[in-house]
């Protein structure tokens, strides 16, 4: 069975640009969460979606938005990129209390 997949693997953008990151959960999982991990820190919670509804939102500015599609895949959008948005972005799908993480998207903002 395929695990959680994320695309792209790596991405380089310029300040002020917009980025869209994608995530496909494990088949049958209806919940998707997004995390930002800056180098040297633990993952910080951004959003959680369940059945296309937002279930939770972390302490991130409105430049960050997300959505979940009918097939339970998800997109994370970040507008007006800042240098500080450079990080590893992790997606996780969950079954019960267990989360399964994807390999992440490494975003570099120049």
């Amino acid at each position: 069975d395929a695990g959680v997949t994320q695309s792209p693997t790596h991405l380089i953008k310029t300040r002020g640009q917009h980025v869209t990151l994608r995530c496909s959960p494990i088949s049958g999982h209806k919940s998707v969460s997004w995390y930002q991990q800056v180098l040297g820190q633990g993952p910080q919670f951004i959003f959680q979606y369940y059945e296309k509804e937002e279930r939770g939102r972390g302490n991130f500015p409105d430049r960050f938005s997300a959505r979940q599609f009918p097939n339970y895949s998800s997109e994370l959008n970040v507008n007006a990129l800042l240098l500080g948005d450079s990080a590893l972005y992790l997606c996780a799908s969950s079954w019960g209390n267990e989360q399964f993480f994807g390999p992440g998207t490494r975003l570099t903002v120049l």
Partner: protein
Amino acid sequence: SQQGEEDPQALSIQEGENATMNCSYKTSINNLQWYRQNSGRGLVHLILIRSNEREKHSGRLRVTLDTSKKSSSLLITASRAADTASYFCAPLPASGGSYIPTFGRGTSLIVHP
């Protein structure tokens, strides 16, 4: 949601030795999970311990939970170079709602061959 705090921040040992990492949290929990992250990769779920359990084993991993002290420990026995990774704990609050694990800075473990 609440965050677990891992200690120590970094741990360096020789292959074959045991590694112990600790986690502290602040409020009552339903369960607590441990994750491993290899450099720059996604997190891998290691083990879940429920609030009514005191100890749990999985292969070379042993997790303990002391709800009176609001702490947990992860012991890796007979460590291997492949155990080199960051380890995070994630407590699930007892208050219910959506499960949104929050992570501290983790413990960075280096196992020297």
